[in-house]
């Protein structure tokens, strides 16, 4: 992903290594790729930019041999090639790192790396394999222990195993599907360095993304896809983020959102010396105190895993507290169950939307009505009123612009953005004034992110109190009124969003108290 010094001004070596012509891939009811052409030079980094569902991943899965295209041909070093399986693709030196890592949790790093290799002995020489892995990990400074199990590794380490796997098999073209989505800023920088070394050796890369700044920072060339078609291909240095966003979404995107003046009212949610320890006695939340008022968005910043998740779950009643208290409109609600919290007016947009936000195999309308089907007018004496539910679902789908074929479509078939809009619609509709949103725009494209942020602000402008947990500082600075930074379960400081900047937040995220920053 990194531009190397040699190629900073050019675009690779000018030698074309890969060409895809007229690729079409259809799924039942949808054309994921429609006559797409693509070209890649040796030593070049190509960014594939597009919203969720634009067809980026499908196109790369065709190249990686996972999907069979319905039309089109692929040329590798000028030769017409057939890619029927992942092994065909690997033989050509094309390797893909999928967004969901392709690793077997219960196996070791070494076992994962040699998995599926054709020229392996019947009794794999594990000693040699370990040696080779150690050598490669030294060469690219990819710190990984070959005999560790995958489930013992952090997400960043797992990604290193994926990279090692490609290097081990001698890949020349690396395909990366949203590689930074799961990484901390530090890990993202490391990844960048590692890939820089590989490019210097003449390897090329294609990376899928929907983040404009990554395109600008890392790529030589950018190809924008929209609804399965190529919108434009251009040199990265010739375009601005604004151009890219417009091409990607197909309209102007607001980078600044309209909002009312900050005018907080009564405090609604008050946390007082809240502490949560786990079974081993480690403090996940350590003496956390703050309050959120009506008409306010209170942001929580921090590197993932510093207690934000636990904070959201404590407030929504999913986890018990060890000590301290939670008060809601002056009433003590410490230790209440989730259903009591919901009744007291708390809505929750969970971090893991697939696992906790929706039931994938149920319809959009059933998911929308999930919080109110117990009561009239959605049901009477335990019998669901289908026509009222349908009417309600229709109005929510219109209001929140959920793009779904029908209200009866199963939620798992929607894009990430529309799944999130479904959750937002349900939670905001049922909200009694306090909204806890954990990473609401994570993994969403520009259009959907904009919709999410607008809805949070609308909630605030309607005198709601919003707790926003996010790992994107830009988002926090744009949307919140006040920001608290968490580090190892403690609050490092609470600042006004207007008077702070990324540097100050960054230092607190690294564990400095606000008072220590001069």
């Amino acid at each position: 992903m990194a531009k190397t010094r040699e190629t900073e001004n050019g675009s690779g070596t000018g030698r074309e290594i890969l060409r895809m012509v007229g690729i079409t891939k259809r799924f039942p009811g949808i054309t994921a790729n429609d006559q797409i052409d693509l070209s890649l030079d040796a030593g070049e980094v190509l960014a594939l930019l597009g919203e969720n569902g634009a067809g980026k991943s499908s196109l790369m899965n065709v190249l990686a041999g996972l999907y069979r295209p319905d039309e089109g041909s692929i040329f590798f070093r000028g030769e017409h090639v057939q890619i029927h399986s992942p092994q065909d693709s690997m033989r050509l030196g094309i390797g893909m790192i999928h967004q969901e890592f392709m690793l077997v949790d219960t196996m070791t790093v070494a076992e994962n790396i040699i998995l599926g290799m054709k020229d392996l002995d019947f009794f794999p020489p594990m000693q040699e394999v370990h040696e080779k892995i150690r050598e490669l990990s030294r060469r690219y400074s990819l710190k990984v222990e070959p005999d560790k199990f995958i489930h013992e590794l952090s997400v960043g380490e797992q990604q290193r195993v994926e990279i090692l796997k490609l290097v081990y098999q001698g890949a020349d073209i690396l395909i990366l599907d949203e590689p930074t989505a799961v990484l901390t800023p530090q890990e993202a920088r490391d990844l960048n360095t590692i890939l820089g070394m590989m490019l210097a050796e003449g390897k090329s890369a294609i990376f899928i993304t929907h983040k404009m700044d990554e395109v600008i920072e890392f790529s030589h060339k950018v190809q924008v896809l929209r609804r399965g078609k190529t919108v434009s291909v251009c040199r990265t240095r010739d375009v601005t983020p604004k151009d890219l966003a417009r091409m990607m979404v197909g309209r102007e995107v607001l980078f600044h959102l309209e909002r009312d003046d900050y005018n907080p009212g009564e405090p609604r949610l008050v946390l007082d010396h809240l502490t949560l320890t786990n079974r081993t006695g480690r403090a996940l939340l350590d003496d956390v105190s703050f309050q959120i008022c009506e008409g306010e968005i209170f942001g929580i910043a921090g590197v993932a895993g510093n207690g934000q998740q636990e904070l959201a779950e404590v407030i929504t009643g999913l986890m018990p507290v060890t000590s301290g208290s939670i008060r809601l409109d002056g009433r003590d609600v410490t230790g209440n169950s989730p259903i009591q919290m919901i009744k007291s007016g708390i809505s929750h947009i969970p971090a893991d939307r697939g696992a906790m936000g929706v039931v994938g195999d149920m319809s959009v309308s059933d998911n929308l009505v999930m919080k109110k089907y117990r009561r009239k007018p959605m049901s009477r004496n335990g019998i669901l009123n289908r026509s009222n539910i349908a009417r309600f679902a229709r109005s929510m789908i219109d209001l929140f612009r959920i793009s779904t074929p029908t209200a009866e479509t199963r939620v798992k078939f929607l894009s990430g953005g529309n799944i999130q809009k479904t959750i937002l619609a349900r939670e905001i509709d049922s909200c009694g004034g306090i909204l806890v949103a954990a990473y609401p725009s994570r993994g969403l494209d520009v259009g959907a992110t904009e919709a999410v942020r607008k809805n949070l602000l609308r909630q605030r402008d309607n005198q709601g109190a919003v707790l926003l947990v996010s790992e994107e500082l830009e988002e926090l600075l744009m949307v919140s009124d006040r920001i608290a930074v968490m580090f190892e379960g403690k609050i490092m400081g609470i600042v006004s969003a207007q008077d702070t900047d990324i540097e100050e937040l960054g230092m607190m995220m690294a564990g400095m108290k606000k008072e220590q920053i001069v």
Partner: protein
Amino acid sequence: MQLITTLLAVTLGAGTSLLYATLGEIYTERSGILNLGVEGMMMMSALAAFSVSFYTGSLLLAVIVAMAVGAGLSLIHAFLSITMRANQVVSGLSITLFGTGLASYLGQRLGPASNGRNLAGMSAKSFSDISVPVLGDIPILAAFFNQDIMTLLLFIVVPAAWIFMFKTRSGLTLRAVGENPRTASAMGIPVAGIRYIYTAVGGMLVGLGGAHLTLGYTPGWSENVTGGRGWIVIALVIFAGWNPSRAIFGAVLFGGINAIQFRLQAAGTVIPASFLNMAPYIVTIIVLAVMTLLGRKRRGTYSPPSALGTSFAIEDK
């Protein structure tokens, strides 16, 4: 001393068919296919082995036919659950109901006319008719080695099954398919093919277990000869934590319970026979609870293959 030796010998004998079938089901489940048809497959292969031995006198042919019957039934399950992507529980249960039903019908039809076409009560050549050079006349060791050929073969089969699963390329492939078929597929492994193979291999081993019931442990055919052993096998797989070498302990434990229960009944204790018959199943319940707890604590060493019982297609969401 004599008692211990006898008990041990009976234990190993009773455990043999359980162990073959357990190894088979472990291999099948490791590929991600849950085959609940074991009981029916054992019953059918037990019948097949006995009738072939009865009519031809060839033990080798009997064993081959038993393996073929086991594999054949398991391939029906494979077709339903891999190709048709049907519910594996329902498919497996159908195989059991079909197998036990058909075997009990055929058992009353395949016999000689002199016995009213019934196979029950007939005797055929059995494994104990093959003489194996005995390795020792030392009391305890004799229990281990003074066994029929099928039991002795286990001393090779079990280690081989373990080495194959954990030390070879093919074993790695097998485990990956059962743990994470999506990843396996992305690494170029033909998931469906691998699942077919190991479902059939599992069926063959279950077939051997069935053959040992009618030609080894208690020679002779009787209706309901398996007596629920197919279900105990399902529990033993969990007891073994899907590990071939640990399957020994389970087989010995249940074989032992069987042996002791027989002795007690023969000796005429005050415990009602029904309770003694229940013993293996009560132990099954306890074992399941304990192993499930262990599986939760030590991931990977006792927990089931993650994709067990699920169908797979690469273009699925």
